[in-house]
């Protein structure tokens, strides 16, 4: 399964007026990996995801997904190839109940191709399928929660809903933009197994994260961005020993205290 490059990003540049948000960022992700992207605030992590998924037009650079050039394609075309993303600031459909939120991605060409014209093939109609997906992602099936309006759901559920929207597209690669941010420790603790489960299902994950302890538990490789430039890349332990990373990102003091589990 692994070993194949699922995503190849080459020399992505993006500037907003005078601000260079990304400068010659290149990396590759292998199939089945969990790839972490870390960096201080404003280092261009979210911009990078926006460029990859087509929400922002990059100035220059090339992005290959499964060997296919997807640079400068529209976001909906990219999502239909199985490259999905979550939003850091959750973007649910507030006026719809949680399970109806998923009917929209289930209506996409990709989901219809994979699941038949009713959305779920033999599994049932889109409503049934979306309840199944929500249960998988941690909405209790026999509770009121899946039927509640998204506007009345707490942050933890909205973060899960973001992931569920990606899952409804039956993705091969999910770009997670800070799924742990804004969650309590116990909520994070219940999210980590979900991420591990997605990985076991063969979905490649890219995670932007500030919660390093949790990220390092799941991530096999980590890339560090600073001021739009790639500082270093490697396995978490190596990256954290890097002097430049200590300087730029964590502050050396904090890092000395940092202990790796296992």
């Amino acid at each position, binding site marked *: 399964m692994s070993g194949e490059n699922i995503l190849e990003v080459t020399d992505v540049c993006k500037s907003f007026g005078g601000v260079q948000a990304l400068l010659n960022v290149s990396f590759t992700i292998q199939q089945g990996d969990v790839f972490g992207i870390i960096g201080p605030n404003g280092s261009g992590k979210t911009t990078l995801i926006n460029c990859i998924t087509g*929400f922002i037009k990059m100035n220059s650079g090339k992005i290959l997904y499964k060997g296919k050039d997807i640079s400068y394609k529209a*976001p909906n075309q990219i*999502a239909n190839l199985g490259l999905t*993303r979550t939003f850091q600031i959750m*973007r649910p459909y507030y006026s719809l109940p949680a399970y*109806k939120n998923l009917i929209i991605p289930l*209506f996409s060409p990709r989901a219809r191709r994979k699941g038949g014209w009713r959305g779920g093939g033999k599994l049932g109609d889109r409503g049934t399928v979306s309840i199944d997906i929500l249960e998988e992602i941690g909405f209790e099936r026999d509770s009121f929660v899946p039927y509640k309006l998204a506007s009345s759901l707490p942050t933890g559920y909205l973060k899960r809903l973001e992931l569920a929207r990606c899952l409804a597209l039956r993705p091969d690669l999910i770009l997670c933009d800070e799924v742990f941010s804004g969650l309590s420790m116990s909520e994070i603790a219940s999210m980590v197994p979900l991420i591990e489960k997605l990985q076991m299902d063969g979905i490649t994950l890219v995670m932007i994260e500030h919660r390093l302890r949790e990220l390092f538990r799941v991530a096999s490789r980590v890339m560090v961005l600073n001021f739009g430039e790639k500082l270093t890349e490697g396995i978490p332990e190596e990256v954290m020993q890097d002097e430049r990373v200590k300087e730029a990102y964590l502050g050396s003091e904090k890092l000395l205290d940092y202990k790796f589990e296992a």
Partner: protein
Amino acid sequence: MDKVERRKERIDRGIKVRTEGIYAVSSWQEVAYLVLPRLVLIVGLLLLPLIIPPLFGPYWKRVISYAAIYGLLALGFDFLAHFVGLVSLGGAFFIGVGGYTAAILNISLGLSPLFTIPMATVGGAIICTLLLLPALPLRGVYFAIVTLMYPLALMRIIEALNIFGGTDGILGVAGFPNTWIEQYLIILIVIFALFGLRRLVNEDIGLVFRGVKDNDQSVRASGLSITLYKAIAVFIASGLGCLGGAYLAHIYMWSGISQFALDFSVIPIAATVIGGGGTLVGPLLGCFFLVPISEWLRTFGTLRIVFYSVILMAFIMFRSEGVMVFAQRKYHQFQRWVKV
């Protein structure tokens, strides 16, 4: 001794089990609770041609048809504004395109209204959608301005180039065989449009429309093209408008630049304000209220605009949510006495 204790209970408790989508109907009373409002609306609309003209005079037959045509526009406006997030002032545009298409088909090809109305509906909707396609990425007031410019521009183009009969318009368009057909056909069309749209917005594709209104970036991330779905929605709404326009051309037996008049853009919005946006039935009833009022006020001459404005202002100040939103809430709060 045998005094039975009673308490109040909301009627919809048993009906609305958990969600708005799932109903558990268990008695005739509850069936009536669900069906009665719809039945009253349908029967009421169907009775209008029987009741109104004998009471007020034959002229009012026309008014019923006008109100229904405005109702189609209001349905289209409400659908676009509250379910797709596009505020459209294009009522005049849709009516004009539909009217001219029907008139040209009727005069040059000699087709009967039976064919020109459906053809003008679909053809006009295609024309309107294609012309509005460049404006679809716009939202809010910007889209509204573009839809407002088209009827003004088309009116001047027809005037300046003296095409399609110029300022005289196209004369000699075929009319309807009799006024009964004229009234009942449009009322049936309106009823089908209302219930069709209400069903549509709760279907899967309707959820996509509502998603476009709620969070268009999320729809793109879900692998759906927002331009495509906005275009489909504009096609539906402009189809309703063009149907009204074609109908109007056959009622007048004439099609001219006054079909681009801004009344067709403004009255549907006023009706939506009065009726309650987002309910679909509200704007329709708003038209059946406003259009007759507007006709009735004609006796006051130019003062009618003043009265009209006062009525509108009163609604905006005291019932700004709209009559149907208010009525629906009250209807859900109905209580009955039950044995404890």
